[in-house]
């Protein structure tokens, strides 16, 4: 019962949403993209979409500079 977040193994929590996972991981930076098993989740769906067991999550954030 675990998921992979940015290459790290993390416990899977039933009915946890993307928002919940980001909070648990303490990802507070401005987010750009969340992929669940290579599928992009749009930001407006973060509070609705739940994380499936054994899924691979990629959280990509942007930092300033350009």
């Amino acid at each position: 019962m675990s998921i992979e977040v940015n290459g790290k193994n993390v416990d899977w929590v039933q009915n946890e949403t993307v928002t919940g996972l980001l909070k648990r991981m303490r990802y507070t930076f401005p987010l750009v993209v969340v992929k669940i098993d290579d599928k992009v989740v749009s930001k407006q769906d973060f509070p609705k979409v739940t994380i499936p067991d054994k899924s691979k999550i990629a959280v990509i954030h942007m930092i300033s500079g350009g």
Partner: protein
Amino acid sequence: MVKLMNKLKSDKIKKKLKESSVGIAGLGGLGSNAAAALARAGIGRLVLVDFDKVEEDNLTRQYYFLDQIGKSKTEAMKENLERINPKITVEIYNKKLEKGTMEKPFEDVDMVIEALDNAETKTTFIEEILLKLPDKPLVAASGVAGYGHSDRIKTNRCGNLYLCYDEKAKSCDEDVLLAPRVALMANWEANLALEIILGEDR
């Protein structure tokens, strides 16, 4: 025979690039250097958006010159690009991209390069393009500050989003911005643009 093949291949590539268009959001270190690279490569049309003026500080890394200080970046860039390649069409928008209409200038280009500076604006821009122009390839960059560590830069593909990415880089509020790394990232973005336009076949 090999020479002829190379000539045919290179003519085909030149033609394709000439017929292509790229939009660039932001003309700072990333955007100005990417625009110069694409103009030299022979992209036919560039759509450039920025609201800023050239400042002396910018010259450590951006594609402008001392005598352009005070000019709008869009005008200065158009001048510089036309000095490189007079056949190029340069369309400029001297304005700030505002949330809700960020995709507007880029509706009729083949692909878009994100070259903004602030993390929040980058994020908003990427989300708006992905949502409103879902079929448009988008190249973005994160982690340009600092020096060295060239080989930490990676391309992270996520559907139509191609992210040039150094996950260990610090933000520009905590680290210096210097020409080599900024230009490296800008050219990484421009190189990805060519790969997207020309396809994998080489």
